[in-house]
């Protein structure tokens, strides 16, 4: 399935969108994509199929966000902790990434049409070199787009991100660019992976678990976490 879908909307879908858009809409939504393996187990699928279906549902959710005028979405796709999974599953997820980033490059025209900027947040060094190169090309290709922003957290944990910011600040002090006393919350935020984004207004976790799992720990200070029913449907926005 494509990153950007252009499906015809049903009348009910259109109507619901119009009703929702008459009220306040979050400008930045963060999503913890959880539950692919449980979904696969429940439906007797392979885990690989579960992850693929998870991506399909993500693409659908991005479509809903686009319809509703949500301009920025940050998704937790692959945690540094996920490297602890079996080699088979890690390889499967890496292969999925290869396919999806290759697909992204093929859909350049569609992405330009909607002016979607892709950013990949995380420690890329832990990823296979070919995936790093694909990510770099995708990010470079879309860097000037500005109507919608999709931040994909890959090889990411929030604690690792906080350490990354601390290293940046320490380097700045070492080079004499800033003083120690200049280090403040606002400067700290400018050193995080999410420096180009406002904090999320809404955090959604699929599958029903109620924890952050090392995702945006600094940024979600004032975000509203919302826990969905296991089946991810459009009604989540109503809250």
């Amino acid at each position, binding site marked *: 399935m494509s990153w950007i879908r252009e499906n015809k909307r049903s009348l009910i879908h259109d109507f619901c969108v119009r009703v929702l858009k008459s009220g306040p809409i979050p400008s930045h939504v963060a999503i913890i994509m959880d539950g692919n393996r449980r979904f696969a187990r429940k439906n007797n699928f392979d885990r690989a199929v579960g992850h693929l279906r998870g991506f399909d549902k993500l693409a659908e959710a991005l479509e809903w966000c686009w319809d509703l005028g949500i301009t920025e979405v940050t998704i937790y796709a692959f945690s540094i902790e996920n490297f602890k999974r079996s080699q088979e599953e890690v390889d499967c997820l890496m292969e999925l990434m290869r396919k999806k980033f290759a697909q992204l490059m093929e859909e350049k025209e569609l992405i330009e049409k909607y002016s979607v900027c892709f950013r990949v947040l995380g420690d890329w060094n832990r990823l296979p070199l070919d995936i790093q190169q694909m990510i770099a090309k995708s990010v470079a290709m879309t860097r000037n787009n500005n109507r919608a922003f999709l931040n994909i957290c890959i090889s990411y944990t929030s604690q690792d991100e906080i350490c990354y910011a601390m290293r940046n600040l320490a380097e700045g002090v070492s080079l004499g660019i800033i003083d120690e006393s200049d280090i403040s*919350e606002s400067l700290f935020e400018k050193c995080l992976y999410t420096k180009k984004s406002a904090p999320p207004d809404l955090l959604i976790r699929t599958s029903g678990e109620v924890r952050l799992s*090392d995702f945006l720990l600094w940024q979600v*200070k004032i975000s509203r976490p919302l826990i969905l029913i296991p089946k991810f449907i459009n009604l989540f926005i109503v809250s």
Partner: protein
Amino acid sequence: MTTTILYRVLLVVVHLTISLKELLAVICCRMMKLLTSGVGDGEPRSVPAIKHEASRRLKRLPVHLGIVVVEEDLHVVDIVKIVAWSMAVGISYITIYDYKGWCKKNKATILRVLEEQKEKMETNGQNKTKCSTVNNSNGVINPLTGGGDCQRQKPKLQIVGPEDGRQHLISVARHLSHQVLNCEIKNDDIAVPFVDAVIRGNDLDPDPDLVMKFGAVNSLLGFLPWQTRLTEIISLPTHHRIDFASFLTALDQFGYTEQRYGK
């Protein structure tokens, strides 16, 4: 323009319907409690009674409970009740937080009221019970003692404020920058295990594995961001006039959560 107003009215109707449904659920819940609760349910329960009920009902206990109050109006007596119950069931570490830092500033008051509450509970518990156990979330058996043969692990209470969250991380960032500048450490040393040790200092307490959040605001409002990476969050509507049954239900809910740690 007319259609926009119509859509807006419909949205308001949807929200009112959801709010009404939630209100009805709260009313039904309170009525059920009134019908099923015994006399003096609001009175301090005895320590042995609390332990007996906890061991009967709970699958496992958190090792470290965070009590996060996101309400404007803080009731010390109710916060202290939660702390006392937590100690009585055998939770080893308890942290209180409110986003204004009021609890930390009034620590002496909270500790005084806690001593009074504990005395009431000890006074009520005249009969000793047999030792019973509930697993804490590390799988270690945590004895709930009625006194006598089994040993009690003394619970540790701490009270934190906003300065212990983001502001503490900023202090750590400044400290590490100073160390790098003076060549005491290398920049590459600033990694998760190292930073974790610096943040904790001499504090070897485990991270909170459960937060009970009291209030309608769906956020932890700055509670220990570094330490809550894996914390389960259970929301309760309010801490005002909280009853033991609600507290126990939240702990029961925790017993069914499953941590996969990324695996």
